[in-house]
């Protein structure tokens, strides 16, 4: 269907045909999956839309769904900008994403199991030893520790983009404490409140079943000999940028939200202080970083953790999700070996593509990177949240020189990838009071338990709100969209 020129919402939509638009074909016609949506939206004027969008925003504000952006000088509290125009993924495409995400999570789990035991993959020379020996996130304390249920990465956040060739590519795997899932659920709630009449026309999967699946996964990795595990969520506290999410998940799972000072360890078991006396804790969904878990074993100045916690974990008396030391596998240098890692452990070809990556630690690749900084995305291997990324074609000559110097100084610290063209999606832009193309990605959430797995059917579509910007992280001022995964037609 051609867009109706009288459809005021999209009449002035500035479509750049060199970009891959998920809603409109290059000739301006609407893709089949979005036809109904556009029809329904077409019944409204842009002013209706503005009103609805504002209502949705204030609902976020009233619920206190905010996050903090860290900066060198100051920390700011912000609402996560939400866009009412949803992203739709059809069944067939979703099947690829879902099976690909499970495959990666399983492979990463086997990789972690291996590198904290026999290290066969290194002895077999599939990945280089330097990958571990130079990784600050490799915890030697985890050697030969057996996590309950054999699971390391219970929760994985896989960031996926749709390239202009129409295929999905994985940008990175986040398996320390991936966050963002609460926004998926809030986005859905906000959208349904504002536009129930629209949502109702599509047969999309629910996203509110995440918490119940998370609880099942956590219960499946209970310590040996425990029948009814007591699960808790541990948070660094209300000043953490993801505190809303911690409290949401605890509430939705019906478990206690605790801080380090609420727990103590006695005789290598973990207890929670309650008004009825100590209560044993069996599974901890921890949202504090490795370094802060236990001041006796890691950072001695940590006041967020629990002294003796790691010993209780080593003894198998408590399960930590995710396991300590998973950070070694979400290192961006490990990412580049993912196709080999998947093949090595599962004997399968990767279902989802990797972006080709250059290792600055290899002399000839370093040379290529230094000569082509303007054509590449250069990233530090160990920073999360989009910090320290430079995108070559956006840099001035002086900036390119600066990047070259940095990389030359510490080659192991950097990898580089070709600049991908992320797909774009019509996004309402406040200042212009109209829709424009903005780049998007998708964070998926995969859960891995003892003998079970789950992928949240939906995920967080993140939008780079600045025109032309490719970095979609919320900490870089991105927004988000509700993401509908359609059920198969019966």
């Amino acid at each position, binding site marked *: 269907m051609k867009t109706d020129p009288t459809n005021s919402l999209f009449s002035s939509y500035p479509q750049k045909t060199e970009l891959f638009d998920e809603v409109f074909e290059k000739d301006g016609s609407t893709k089949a999956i979005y036809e109904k949506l556009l029809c329904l939206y077409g019944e409204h004027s842009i002013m209706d839309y503005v009103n609805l969008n504002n209502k949705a925003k204030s609902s976020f504000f009233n619920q206190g769904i905010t996050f903090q952006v860290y900066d060198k000088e100051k920390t700011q509290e912000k609402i996560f900008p939400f866009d009412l125009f949803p992203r739709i993924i059809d069944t067939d495409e979703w099947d690829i994403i879902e099976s690909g995400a499970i495959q990666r999570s399983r492979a990463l789990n086997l990789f972690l199991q291996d590198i904290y035991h026999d290290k066969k993959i290194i002895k077999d020379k599939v990945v280089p030893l330097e990958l571990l020996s130079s990784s600050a996130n490799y*915890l*030697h304390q985890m*050697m030969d520790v057996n996590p309950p249920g054999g699971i390391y990465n219970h929760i994985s956040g896989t960031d996926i983009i749709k390239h202009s060739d129409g295929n999905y590519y994985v940008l990175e795997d986040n398996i320390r404490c991936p966050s963002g899932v609460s926004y998926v659920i809030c986005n859905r709630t906000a959208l349904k409140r504002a536009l129930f009449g629209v949502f109702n026309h599509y047969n999309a999967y629910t996203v509110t079943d995440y918490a119940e699946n998370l609880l099942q996964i956590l219960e499946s990795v209970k310590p040996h000999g425990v029948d009814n595990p007591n699960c808790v969520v541990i948070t660094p506290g209300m000043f953490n940028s993801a505190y809303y999410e911690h409290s949401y998940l605890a509430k939705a799972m019906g478990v206690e939200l605790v801080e380090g000072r609420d727990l103590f360890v006695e005789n*290598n078991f973990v207890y929670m202080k309650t008004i009825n006396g100590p209560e044993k804790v069996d599974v901890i969904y921890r949202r504090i970083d490795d370094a802060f878990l236990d*001041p006796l*074993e890691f950072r001695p100045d940590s006041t967020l953790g629990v*002294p*003796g916690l790691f010993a209780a974990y080593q003894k198998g008396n408590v399960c930590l999700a995710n396991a300590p030391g998973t950070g070694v596998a979400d290192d961006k240098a490990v990412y580049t070996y993912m196709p080999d890692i998947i093949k090595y452990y599962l004997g399968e070809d990767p279902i989802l593509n990797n972006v080709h990556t250059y290792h600055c630690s290899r002399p000839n690749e370093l040379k290529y990177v230094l000569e082509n900084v303007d054509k590449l995305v250069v990233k530090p291997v160990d920073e999360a949240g989009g910090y320290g990324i430079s995108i070559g074609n956006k840099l001035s000559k002086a900036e390119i020189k600066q990047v070259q110097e940095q990389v030359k100084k510490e080659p192991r610290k950097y990898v580089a990838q070709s600049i991908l063209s992320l797909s774009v999606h019509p996004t309402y832009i406040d200042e212009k009071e109209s829709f424009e193309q903005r780049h998007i990605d998708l964070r998926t959430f995969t859960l891995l338990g003892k003998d079970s797995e789950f992928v949240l059917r939906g995920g967080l579509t993140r939008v780079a709100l600045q025109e032309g910007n490719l970095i979609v992280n919320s900490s870089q001022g991105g927004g988000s969209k509700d993401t509908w995964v359609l059920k198969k037609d019966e």
Partner: protein
Amino acid sequence: MPTEFAITYSTQNEYESLVNGAFWQFLIIPEENDTQQLLDWEMKSNIQLDQNESVNGLGFKSIHAHTKEKFTKADFKASFRVQKKSSNPFDFIPNQNWQADLEEIQSIAFRTVNEIFLRKTRFTELPSDFTTIFPFNANKNVFENLMALNHWVFVHLFFKVGVTHVDTPLQEIIEKRHGVCQDFTHLFLAIARANHIPARYVSGYLHQGNGYFGDSQMHAWAEAYVPQAGWVGFDPTNDILVANDHIKICHGLDYSDCSPLKGVVYSSGGNKTSHSIEVRSSQQ
């Protein structure tokens, strides 16, 4: 002939203001290995404690103690009886030269297993100005080189208590040329690892009365991997190989893995801490 050692570890901790709660980890129990047998041990305190045996991150036995009452003064006294078999660190047939040793040490299987003891940590990274401060001799085997290193560290540094503290960087120790057993050990580790020899930090007790440096406190030395022999103890503070007078507690990457007393104390204000060690032997 086995020797029996009676070891006493005591520590006194005084706090300016009332402590509401504390959780301590003691890494002071002698390891049980081929040459050491722990006969019995106990630990007492002046305050009421919940005390239990646990492990540290590398699996060595530790004591966890959790207070049951408020206090301003906490004293601990632990005693251990250890039986030690005599051993001879020279009792092996070394490879003839560096090349033969290198073949073993540079194999991927070997490096994979020992990778963590080749790591540079904040205590064991040689400062960039000093990377060639003690070059290994390619005409000697690993064992000879390590003995030369042991001697070199002993000569280069002067044993002096009170001038360095637990966080003194290696750079300062090399430049000012003094320190305690911990500093001697870190320098040995840094150079051994820079030469691709896996080396680990060892914490333990030293037999007193022989005039050794560092015997009045918890001692530290290094274990390095020698082809054909395995892990061999080097005590650079005293320029000797570890044999019958060293009672090992645990090993790790550096001091931070092995510190004898770690704790979290919920209190404000300063505190005073003192430690003392007594090691007596009786030949059997």
